[in-house]
């Protein structure tokens, strides 16, 4: 079974499943570092089965001893009854012989049934413990350990332990007893014959050792070469389209041929040696029979033995080889089980991630005010990633994080979610140090939409509900609607009940992103963190995503790792990050005015891409210098952080409403365009973002009008 298991794993995870353990019992023996300690610890898992195990061991002892009587009775039957012609006695001894076999069968059967329960039960416990512990480990653990490796802990390593448990533990007891029993019985029956039978014994050991040694050497080579070959195969198949595109088939074939040939040659050597052992062992036991029969015959003639003894000895020497063969195999599986167990314990012993402090709280409600105070952070000691980061986000504000790759944008998110703890400074939410907030609670209030969208198998509905397990179907659908996902979901073959295949391969990147937004919406977080990677999405889907994100951000403090200038423009504050430091801050217009790092970034993006007229139009400096007399507060009452305060927003909204009233755009018939209304661009964003969503301003074919009855919503 175990071989099949690992194969299966490979199907699911071709990129990591290449490390095969090789045929059990040949070459490739792993050694446990601390065999004794690991064994003792492994034994802990069987504590609860103490009584059952004691029973199994006792039963095994009994059945091994009784089993030894089988050949003995055969000899007795021949000598005492058959040769002497005692029919009644023959029947009696035959029945006893049958009794022996029935008893041993019964015990073996019952033992297997009990042991199956014990071994599988303890494996289940081990898997559970390992899994649950993994859930507690910090992200840095998962950064360091690849998914494939961890998977292999839970499959291959557990498998190795399982193989040892199911096959070998009872056999070990039985084989030992049988071996000792046979030796004792043989010597008590006939010392000389016993000694003669043992002649083959050292031969077997020497042979196994010599061949085993060579086998291991060749096997190691074979394993290495097979690994190399499989590596080439895996890589080539993974990049087959590139191979075709660059017409490299011939080169690839040549490389393959060389390695395939090497594997074949080494394989012949390794396997020839490996496969020689079992038949030769069997043949040595044949030689043993010859010796016993010859010597026994001579002794019988001398009156020193009986025919029955010869028969008994022949049976014993047959049984003798089995335990020996098993011991060799068992040694290997014990070693690999212990090595596996060691790796498992290593994970279980990894300390869990940052724990909650004792007096951690779960506040009633979170407004969403986020403050970073002189935060320093490093993943690895002495490699600072964040340096002296300070920022202040007021409830409902949108903060855009901008900067080159590797500047530290994602790290800011990682420390805010407390995936990692900062080394210096303080992060507070609503004035509370996040280290004093329960970690789970904190994360449940943070909505995260990551760059690499991850969906689980299950239905679309399940995936949306992942954000809030108690949400009803209606709520999930409502969330999907807000996320612009409802439309395409309904077009899927089974709508919301469509099963997503592994890694959601049947959805496009953009669709997956929309579902992940719906998932974040239903979680209803107070603070939102978006890694805005819409780059792999086409422009029209992106429009939908942008819209969905705006819905999501509405009323929430949002941190956006922004890649799009359109997003940045809409942000209340833009933080320009470079080398782990905030080098510029302010809103889009202010930053442009500064003509610094951001300005360069902006200019390079748009250089030559917009004709001059357009460029003039959106040129922020001009816009900024354009306040009309009716809006005297523009650019004045900004907070030190650069973003408008909620109170300011309200005021601005009122001013916009006044414009609509003045221009009498208050019904669909009297709707007017921005130009007609003479609304400056920076206000247009506000209209789109907030007022239309509140239902205060509506769109009628590109023309806008005010709905006065909804004004109370302001």
């Amino acid at each position, binding site marked *: *079974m175990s071989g099949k298991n690992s194969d*299966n794993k490979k199907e*699911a995870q*071709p990129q990591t499943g290449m490390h095969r353990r090789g045929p059990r019992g040949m070459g490739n023996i792993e050694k446990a570092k601390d065999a004794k300690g690991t064994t003792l610890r492994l034994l802990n898992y069987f504590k609860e089965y103490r009584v059952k195990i004691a029973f199994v061991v006792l039963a095994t002892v009994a059945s091994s001893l009784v089993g030894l009587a089988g050949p003995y009775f*055969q000899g007795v039957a*021949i000598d005492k*009854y*058959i040769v002497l012609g005692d029919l009644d006695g023959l029947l009696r001894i035959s029945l006893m*012989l049958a009794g022996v*076999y029935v008893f*041993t*069968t019964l015990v073996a*059967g019952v033992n*297997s049934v009990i042991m*199956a329960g014990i071994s*599988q*039960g303890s494996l*289940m416990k081990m898997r*559970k413990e390992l*899994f649950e512990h*993994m*859930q507690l480990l910090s*992200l840095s653990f998962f950064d360091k350990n690849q*998914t494939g490796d961890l*998977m292999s802990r*839970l*499959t291959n390593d557990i498998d190795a332990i399982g193989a040892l448990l199911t096959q070998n533990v009872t056999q070990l007891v039985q084989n030992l007893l049988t071996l000792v029993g046979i030796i004792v019985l043989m010597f008590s029956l006939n010392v000389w014959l016993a000694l003669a039978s043992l002649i083959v014994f050292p031969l077997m050991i020497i042979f196994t050792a010599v061949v085993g040694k060579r086998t291991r050497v060749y096997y190691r080579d074979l394993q290495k070469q097979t690994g190399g070959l499989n590596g080439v195969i*895996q890589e080539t198949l993974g990049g087959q*389209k590139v191979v*075709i595109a660059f017409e490299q*088939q011939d080169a690839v074939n040549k490389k393959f041929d060389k390695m*395939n040939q090497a594997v074949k040659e080494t394989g012949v050597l390794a396997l020839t040696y490996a*496969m*020689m052992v079992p*038949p*030769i062992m069997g043949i040595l036991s044949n*030689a043993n*029979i010859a*010796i016993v029969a*010859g010597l026994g015959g*001579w002794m019988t003639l001398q009156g020193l033995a009986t025919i029955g003894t*010869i028969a008994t000895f*022949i*049976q014993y020497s*047959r049984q003798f080889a089995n335990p020996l063969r098993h011991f060799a195999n068992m040694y290997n599986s014990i070693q690999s089980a212990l090595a596996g167990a060691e790796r498992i314990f290593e994970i279980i012993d990894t300390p869990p991630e940052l724990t909650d402090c004792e007096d951690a709280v779960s506040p009633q409600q979170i407004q969403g005010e986020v403050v970073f105070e002189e935060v320093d952070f490093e993943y690895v000691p002495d490699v600072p990633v964040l340096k002296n980061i300070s920022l202040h986000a007021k409830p409902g504000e949108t903060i855009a994080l901008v900067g080159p790759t590797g500047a530290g944008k994602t790290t800011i998110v990682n420390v805010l979610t407390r995936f990692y703890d900062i080394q210096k400074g303080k992060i507070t939410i609503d004035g509370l140090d996040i280290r004093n907030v329960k970690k*789970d609670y904190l*994360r449940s209030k*943070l909505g995260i939409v990551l760059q690499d969208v*991850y969906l689980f*198998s299950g239905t679309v509905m399940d995936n949306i509900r992942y954000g809030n397990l108690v949400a009803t179907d209606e709520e999930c659908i409502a969330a999907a609607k807000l996320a612009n996902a409802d439309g395409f979901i309904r077009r899927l073959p089974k709508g919301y009940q469509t099963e997503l295949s592994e890694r959601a391969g049947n959805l496009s990147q953009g669709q997956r992103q929309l579902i992940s937004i719906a998932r974040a919406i239903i979680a209803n977080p107070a603070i939102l963190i978006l890694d805005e990677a819409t*780059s*792999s999405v086409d422009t*029209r889907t*992106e*429009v939908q995503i942008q819209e969905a994100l705006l819905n999501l951000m509405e009323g929430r403090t949002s941190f956006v790792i922004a890649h799009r200038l*359109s997003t940045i423009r809409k942000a209340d504050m833009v933080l320009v990050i470079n080398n782990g430091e905030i080098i510029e801050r302010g809103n889009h217009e202010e930053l442009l005015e500064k003509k610094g790092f951001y300005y360069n970034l902006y200019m390079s*993006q*748009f250089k030559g*891409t917009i004709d001059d007229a357009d460029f003039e139009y959106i040129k922020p400096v001009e816009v900024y210098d354009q306040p009309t007399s009716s809006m005297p507060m523009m650019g004045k009452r900004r907070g030190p952080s650069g973003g408008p305060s909620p109170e300011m927003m309200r005021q601005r909204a009122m001013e916009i409403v006044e414009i609509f009233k003045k221009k009498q755009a208050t019904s669909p018939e009297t709707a007017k365009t921005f130009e007609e209304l003479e609304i400056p661009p920076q206000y247009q964003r506000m209209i*789109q973002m907030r007022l239309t969503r509140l239902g205060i301003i509506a769109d009628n074919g590109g023309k806008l009008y005010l709905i006065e009855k909804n004004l109370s919503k302001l």
Partner: protein
Amino acid sequence: MSELKRTFRYLRPYTREAVLAIIFLGLVVVLDLSIPRMVQTLVDEGIGNQDMDIVLRTSLMMIGASILSATMMIGNTIFSVKASRGFEADLREDIFKKIQTYSFGNLDDLSSGQLLTRLTSDLNQIRTMMTMTLRMFTRAPLMAIISLSIMWTTNPQLTKYILILMPVTGVFITLFIRKLQPLFTKTQEKLEQLNQVLEENLSGIRIVKAFVRRDYEGTRFKSANKELTDISVRVNQLIGVLFPLTLLIMNTGIVAIIYFGGIQVIQGSTTVGTIIAFTNYVFSAMFPIMMLSMMAGQISFAEASAKRIMEVLDNEPEIKEKLDAVQLAEVKGRVEFKNVSFSYREDGGDPVLHNVNFTAEPGETVAILGSTGSGKSSLIHLIPRFYDVSDGKVLIDGYDVRDVEPKSIRKHIGISLQEAILFSGTIRDNIRYGRPEATDEEVIEAAKAAQAHEFIIGFPEGYDTNVGQRGVNLSGGQKQRIAIARALLVKPSILILDDSTSAVDVETEIKIEEALEELMKNRTSFIIAQRISTVLNADKIIVLDDGNIAAEGTHDQLIQTSPIYKEIYDSQLGDGGAQ
């Protein structure tokens, strides 16, 4: 069995080895089985007649037979391993080379993961089967038949008891296996289920943590774990009971021999030696039956594997080179699509492109825009003939691509696919992939143009830095830049960049574009990009909508005439529809 049989033709080159292996095996069986017979002689004639000579001679013969049989066994091992390994290597080679002839369409049908499984575990399964055929499968029936014949000729009465027990064993085990087989399948399913929960959990660990779904995941795992355990317990229990029970049947045979044989001895119709020999033959007659019944399950696994392997071998490449295909020594780069329709499925379902017409003159830059699924990638995949059109024609320099050797076209095309795949080896090797003979200067030049030079020399080992599993982890953007350099290095007449800068940051993308502008001057270039800023300077912009060309022209033309283009443009550059 039929698929499995088909794989046997790969044994043909090793016929000599296979036949020798089987002959040796037959000799081994005969020699092994002669031992109990000699024991019988020794007991009956030697001991019975008090003839020391016979005792000595027979036991020496037995030792001789053992040694001879060991030699034969070594012979069998050598030849059977040679045959099965050769068989495996040849089959593997054929599968691999077959895959090398595949075109994109074939690869869409069979994922690389599937192909990999077939080349590794399926192949292993078949190889194991072949080895067993050359050893166990031949040995077991031989042993049973020869044992039975020896027994029958010695004592037909006693043999009858064994003959009764043999089918009992066979039927018994077969019934068990029939019960076990579906359980094995189920175990496999449960195991897959558990692995899936695990894989998803580990891959999505950030999401799990972010949504605080530890308990939920725990429950999911727990139930999968429990289900697997329950079924494994049942399987193990059944197997655990099966073995002792079959042993019991064999032992029943021994008891029968002792009792009924004993009676015969007492009545004088048989000898003690016969009984001793028979107790040995019981095993050699019945054990093979036991092994064969157990192995029967293996055959169905091997058959399934053989079927999967044959599927790979039977799959014919979709793109076939014409016999009289033209070889293009030089490509100027004029690309023309004439009424091209294309569907991924042969039966013509759901065309991805409808009646596409356009011409790109040598040296022109063509940008292709459109939403996901609008057919952009499909369109550019038709140029190097990764797929064949369903209708219409794709012409390069006036030649229908189907009339030209694919290799001679592709040599002149540099392409960077959507997913930047690199191979293990150094960065230099990767850039040189399409033209291994390129000089270091050319490599650096290409890397510079792709804006990759700077980060490459930032690595301690520069261009000799290893990438891939044992090498550095490159970011998505870095991989894409190397892939672009790789495409540039072939000095193509036609350059195709399929969304090749999606993971590159804006600043670098701009730099790449600037560098490309220079490089694209003398070649026809096709660019798929999501960022509209990338396509503004193109000689021609093609806007695809649901497989149709919705608009075609320069930026200045399209901004006036195409609503779709304007929508895309506005969403990115305009101020949210403010104009």
